[in-house]
């Protein structure tokens, strides 16, 4: 492909500059000495120090992490079960409703999900806190997990499972020893997706949380509503760094896994052919 290439290079350069420049600026100004975020007054890491001494931020970070680990783990179990049901269970009464309930939360505006869950918790007289946020996050992220896992299950060769069952494995053993190792990458990416969705969520957490369970996004939101703050820049930089390291590591691992799998498949082909 020639000809258009100048156009392509320009659009890619401008496009990626647009995607990354705002975040680069955020990182840059987090090392700014001045409180006025846009006036450069020399290099300093003092905002990081202030951030790490701020007990409220540390508390919020701890709450957020707790909620994210709990909700993404429960969501992964429930989402994998739901995916299994969607792909394997065949017909059963209420199947249409079930798949509707899996897909609807994906397009539901967060304000509505949050409002409806809050009204439920109030109706049942449940004290709001970490527990209710975990319930709320689990509910919407299990749907994302089940979409990710079911797309992997749909391409999965069922004969392998049947072979295990014929050889005397119990259904649970067949799932644990045959199915799970094969769908594991999808389950892991489902968990990661649920984890980041939970870390990121402001709206649903704001509705369903209670006193003593302020999450980091809620804290950030109330801080930046009034304007730019260097402490939030420092916090954002830390979060961007963690995500970048995580995503790059995950993609390297999955790349290595894919290469190994391709090699094994080739070896298998050669052995059978």
């Amino acid at each position, binding site marked *: 492909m020639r000809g258009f290439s100048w156009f392509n290079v320009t659009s890619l350069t401008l496009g990626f500059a647009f995607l990354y420049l705002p975040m680069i600026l955020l990182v840059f100004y987090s090392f700014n000495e001045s409180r006025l975020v846009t006036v450069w007054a020399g290099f300093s890491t003092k905002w990081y120090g202030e951030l790490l001494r701020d007990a409220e931020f540390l508390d919020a970070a701890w709450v957020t992490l707790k909620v994210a680990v709990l909700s993404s783990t429960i969501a992964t179990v429930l989402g994998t079960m739901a995916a299994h049901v969607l792909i394997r269970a065949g017909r059963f009464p209420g199947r249409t409703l079930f798949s509707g309930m899996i897909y609807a939360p994906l397009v539901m505006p967060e304000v509505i999900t949050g409002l409806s869950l809050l009204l439920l918790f109030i109706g049942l007289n449940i004290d709001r806190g970490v527990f209710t946020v975990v319930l709320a996050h689990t*509910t919407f992220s299990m749907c994302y997990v089940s979409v990710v896992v079911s797309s992997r299950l749909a391409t999965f060769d069922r004969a392998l499972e049947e072979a295990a069952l014929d050889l005397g494995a119990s259904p649970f053993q067949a799932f644990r020893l045959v199915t799970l190792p094969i769908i594991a990458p999808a389950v892991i990416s489902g968990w990661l997706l649920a984890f980041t969705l939970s870390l990121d969520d402001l709206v649903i957490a704001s509705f369903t949380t209670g006193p003593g369970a302020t999450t980091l996004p809620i804290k950030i939101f109330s801080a930046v509503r009034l304007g730019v703050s260097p402490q939030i820049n420092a916090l954002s930089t830390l979060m961007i760094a963690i995500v970048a390291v995580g995503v790059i590591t995950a993609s390297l691992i999955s790349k290595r896994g894919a290469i190994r799998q391709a090699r094994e498949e080739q070896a298998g082909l050669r052995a059978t052919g």
Partner: protein
Amino acid sequence: MSGDGLDTRHRGEALRKAVLIAVPYLWLVALFLVPFFIVLKISLSDIALARPPYMPQLDLSAGLAGLRDFFAGLDFENFVFLTEDSLYWKAYLSSLQIAAVSTIITLLVGYPIAYGMARAAPEWRPTLLMLVILPFWTSFLIRVYSWMGILSNEGTLNSVLLWLGVIDVPLQIMNTNIAVYIGVVYTYLPFMILPIYATLDKMDSSLLEAAEDLGCSRTEAFWLVTLPLSKGGIIAGCFLVFIPTIGEFVIPTLLGGSDTLMIGKVLWEEFFSNRDWPVASAVAVVLLMILIIPIVLFQRNEQKQREAEG
């Protein structure tokens, strides 16, 4: 194996299947379906001193008469209220308009990027793809926030433009709808790029060669072959931006001004500031009814895509 053993095994399997279905099913009924009906019910209720319980209450012990009283007590008062106060329908219209405009801008920005990626050397494509996905993993809130420092009156953009001498007074972009458009385009761009890239990547390049052999110029070939073939990706990308933007709350609140009307923001304020739960619920119900149309169209497009792929 004896017949009895087989029977137990079948029964065990049926039980296992029932449990496997029941657990996620009941979870979703309890935490998705029931809450939704609560919203529907409260939207039809009267506000009773701004505190629950809302009238009417369902009294199951009264039997059929209780049920009849319950339904007789429901009314569409809150929905009538929504049509009477111009704030609400203006907010719905302005949400639709902001979502439509930003979807078009996102398409215009995203298409050339997706095109460039699909035409890049194959060994570059995985890296480019990862660079598009990476922002998606970083906090949405932080990505919106990053524009506050750029667009404000003393922000980076105005400083650069003043320094270059392009402008004499800072541009007022922050707290306007323009800032909202920028925020939406920025945060939803990956959702536009990815489906378009997917269709362009799958496209058979021999079709383009054929078009050129038959006398099309490169530009003509783009308009006559590439663009129509990427239609599925364009439609999918547009819906993926349009649908969530309508109910958006964070972007209009942080980047928009006091005159930026969006329904997600109105619902939030109705609930948290005015504490008017029945009206907030009615706002939510109407928002859902508006969203059903684009969601159904989107589903149809997805189905068509899948069928086309076989």
